[in-house]
């Protein structure tokens, strides 16, 4: 990549400015009921060694058989990343000894992965966007889990996760700041969740990142990288990169050199440290797994999966901008989760898109955030929020009343139209009633009336008084018109 260096993204060292170069390997757990090569459940948790087949425990004579759905999920993901789908791929054995690796090897894909080059378009908070290259995506087995804190001298091994399907998605070193890295993972997660190929639940380990970090002076060749293993939240990814970049800069500026190694991020201490267990030189002795045949499929198989793909966030965002006249920012916010986008579309259908977006983003999201609720568990359904928007458009209620109405629907439920009637929220459009209120206010404030002709901004004060007098139910347009006429304000 020879993209121009953005000076804003440089890190200031003691001596120079430094550019940080980041590449990521994301391990995303494939959404499937059973494991990649066995019929044991992928369900999270469970009693120790309960979701384990004899294959997962590597009993003598046990053989792997691939899960067709995991293959389909990898292809769907490849399509979602606009990547090359390889009609022939090969499963290799990656040989190493570790107690949570029962076979003594991990079945992975080394030379011939199922998915080749693709890309992810990442929107940044400043409104710009970058394209991050995806080098490959391959299928592999997850390892089991070792618990080290149960006993002072022994580790406890549970194989429930052993053999669960992972997609390893390897990016090119196209990222230049922790912010870009966070945005990349966020976007990738969004795409996976849209596709339904990974639930993206980082707390449960469904999405983990290995982050490769190096630093260089702008224009220099790539520096030596360190790999920070298994970072399990987007916030930690940012912190780990910042910490690691500063560590490397300090070493180089001190006249030292970076040695390529695997490190671990400790969020509590805010530092990265060398991983003892991975220190040993690696020689994985990859070779094609002789228990498995090459994985082959034709274009018709790929086409059928492509036909079943949902609309993806980039396309949806473009459509929201075009069809509903939304700003890029609002559209971006709405498509971040498929459920939010669907909710928005249900509200916006046949209504003013901008108004709908405004209600969804400002009122609904604000309220959901405050209560830590997800869109799926929103007490106000899209239908009901749509009805509220309709009531405003029809002039039945004012925007202000609408907010009160939203609050009632949120906390008590009920049909908005019925509530307007039963609670007497219908706005007053009867000019006679409004005129009476206006006349009374004009009569009570002769000094302000006198000033109003010179200072038209006082109109707002009169509107406010009128609304107060009518309990907020007066039609604001009618109030405005009447006041202008009576006060002699032009326009």
């Amino acid at each position, binding site marked *: 990549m020879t993209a121009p260096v953005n000076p804003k993204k440089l890190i200031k060292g003691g001596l120079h400015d430094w550019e940080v170069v980041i590449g990521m390997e994301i391990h995303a757990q494939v959404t499937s009921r059973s494991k990649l090569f066995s019929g044991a459940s992928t369900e999270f948790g469970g009693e120790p060694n309960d979701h384990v087949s004899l294959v997962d425990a590597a009993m*003598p004579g046990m053989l792997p058989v691939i899960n067709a759905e995991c293959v389909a999920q990898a292809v769907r993901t490849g399509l979602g990343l606009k990547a090359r789908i390889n009609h022939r791929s090969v499963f290799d054995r990656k040989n190493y*000894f570790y107690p949570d690796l*029962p076979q003594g090897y991990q079945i992975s894909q080394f030379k011939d992965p199922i998915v080749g080059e693709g890309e992810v378009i990442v929107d940044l908070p400043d409104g710009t966007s970058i394209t991050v290259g995806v080098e490959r995506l391959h299928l592999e087995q997850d390892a089991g889990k070792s618990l080290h804190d149960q006993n002072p001298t022994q580790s406890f091994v549970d194989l429930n996760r052993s053999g669960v399907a992972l997609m390893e998605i390897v990016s090119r070193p196209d990222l230049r700041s922790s912010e870009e890295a966070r945005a990349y993972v966020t976007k990738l997660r969004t795409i996976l969740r849209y596709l339904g190929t990974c639930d993206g639940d980082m707390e449960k380990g469904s999405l983990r990142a290995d982050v490769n970090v190096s630093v260089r002076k702008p224009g220099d060749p790539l520096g030596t990288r360190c790999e920070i293993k298994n970072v399990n939240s987007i916030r930690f990814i940012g912190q780990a990169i910042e910490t690691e970049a500063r560590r490397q800069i300090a070493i180089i500026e001190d006249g030292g050199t970076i040695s390529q190694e695997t490190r671990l991020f400790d969020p509590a201490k805010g530092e990265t440290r060398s991983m003892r267990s991975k220190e040993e030189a690696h*020689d994985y*002795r990859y070779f094609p797994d002789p228990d498995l045949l090459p994985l082959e499929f034709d274009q018709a198989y790929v086409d059928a999966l492509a036909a079943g793909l949902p609309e993806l966030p980039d396309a949806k965002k473009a459509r929201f901008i075009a069809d509903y006249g939304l700003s890029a920012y609002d559209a971006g916010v709405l498509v971040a989760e498929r459920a939010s986008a669907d909710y928005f579309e249900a509200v916006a259908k046949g209504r003013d898109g901008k108004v709908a977006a405004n209600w969804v983003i400002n009122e609904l999201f604000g309220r959901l955030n405050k209560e830590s609720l997800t869109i799926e568990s929103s007490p106000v359904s899209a239908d009901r929020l749509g009805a509220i928007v309709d009531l405003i458009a029809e002039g039945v209620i004012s925007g202000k009343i609408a907010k009160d109405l939203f609050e009632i629907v949120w906390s008590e439920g009920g049909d908005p139209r019925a509530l307007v009637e039963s609670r007497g929220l219908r706005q007053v459009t009867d000019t006679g009633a409004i005129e009476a209120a206006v006349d009374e206010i004009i009569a009570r404030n002769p000094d302000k009336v006198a000033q109003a002709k010179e200072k038209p901004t006082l109109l707002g004060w009169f509107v406010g008084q009128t609304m107060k007098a009518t309990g907020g139910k007066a039609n604001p347009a009618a109030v405005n018109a009447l006041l202008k006429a009576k006060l002699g304000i032009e326009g």
Partner: protein
Amino acid sequence: MTTLNDLTLAQARDGLKAKDFSAVELAQAHIGAIAAARSLNAYLLETPERALEMAAVADTKIAAGEARPLEGLPLGIKDLFCTHGVTTTAGSKILETFQPHYESAVSHNLWRDGAVMLGKLNLDEFAMGSSNETSAYGSVISPWRRTGSDAPLVPGGSSGGSAAAVAARLCLGATATDTGGSIRQPAAFTGTVGIKPTYGRCSRWGTVAFASSLDQAGPIARTVRDCAILLASMAGPDARDTTCADLAVPDFEAAVSRGVKGLTIGIPKEYRVEGMPAEIQALWDQGADWLRAAGATIREISLPHTKLALPAYYIVAPAEASSNLARYDGVRYGLRVPGRDIAEMYEKTRAAGFGREVKRRIMIGTYVLSAGYYDAYYVRAQKIRTLIKRDFEEAYAAGVDAILTPATPSAAFGIGEKASADPVEMYLNDVFTVTVNMAGLPGIAVPAGLDAQGLPLGLQLIGRPFDEETLFATAQVIEEAAGRTVLPPAWWA
């Protein structure tokens, strides 16, 4: 007088059907013979109670007219096949106490068809060997001896326990496995018949793996027909083994009497190796004559990459083995030798649990896969495998139906005779059989006569993929022409 365990499997089957004797009587005859033959060390584990139970069930089935294809026929199982609740050692100390909670596909198929289990048979450790001398539980002694000599001979390997038990009438037939010749070479050494079917004909599920791309199960029995009967039960599709073919099992027994009229039998000139004993050459020529006399056309063919098969095998097989045997780490089953830390536990466990030959092969396999050597060794060996397979494909495309070769370069040798420092000397035993594994083809060894010292010699027939039927038909012609081998009397009892 013939005792029940002298019967062939087919004769025993027919005798049971005719109610000449019961399955329990047949089992008891074998249990007695096994107990009297412990000095041969063929069985690692005898399961007489289970045998009698299964035989009793068989008798009720027969009485009810519900006999299954192998009803009441007592068999031995090579201890590489996992047997539910019955210790399975693979001939290794590392699995000394291992009790599988599952049944291998092949043995399961046999029990499904009514066969009776007599016990588990000795073998070279993890099937790595050609003489059964690498077993952690001691060598198997062949029932054969040289004329006028008491020197103990090897039964061949790795299915040495299977071959010895069949030759000594300690079972009617036995399961075996063949990675480089481990069914055909011991069959040839013991005057028995052994077939390694096409790779993918039998499921590998539940059989302890040696080299996944080469391992294939098959039977050893006393006649071609008995092998056909057993293979028909052992074989068949299995969704649990990706490399197992989804092909219906043909009626192998029917193929036995098909004859060879109109078949073209290839004689590959590259098998005429330097230093081959004249006896072997004469036997080979004799075999060709028998087949010609029975109506086959004999044609010399060329399989130019033959001599590369053995060296390529000694890269591919150890490479796969080094990875397949990584699971024996003392964590989930098998031997564990404690260590200060996990690495030391692994190293001590594997050092104590594996024998010398197994360690050697793991090391060679680890080396040829390691960084910097992978392409030079492993990839090159797999390319040569493509060439070897192509040789056969060309011969078959040119109209050859089966290929006749000697089974082994010599008759059985004495225990300890080949314990030299150079492991390659032992490996040369498999020079005629290993090509077949490298190409995934079916191969059968059938006894064809005795050498000057009175020891059996075998011929090998190699077939087209999934054409075991032609092998049974052709081997039957040789068996008939050579006359059934007279097995040694029970000097051990």
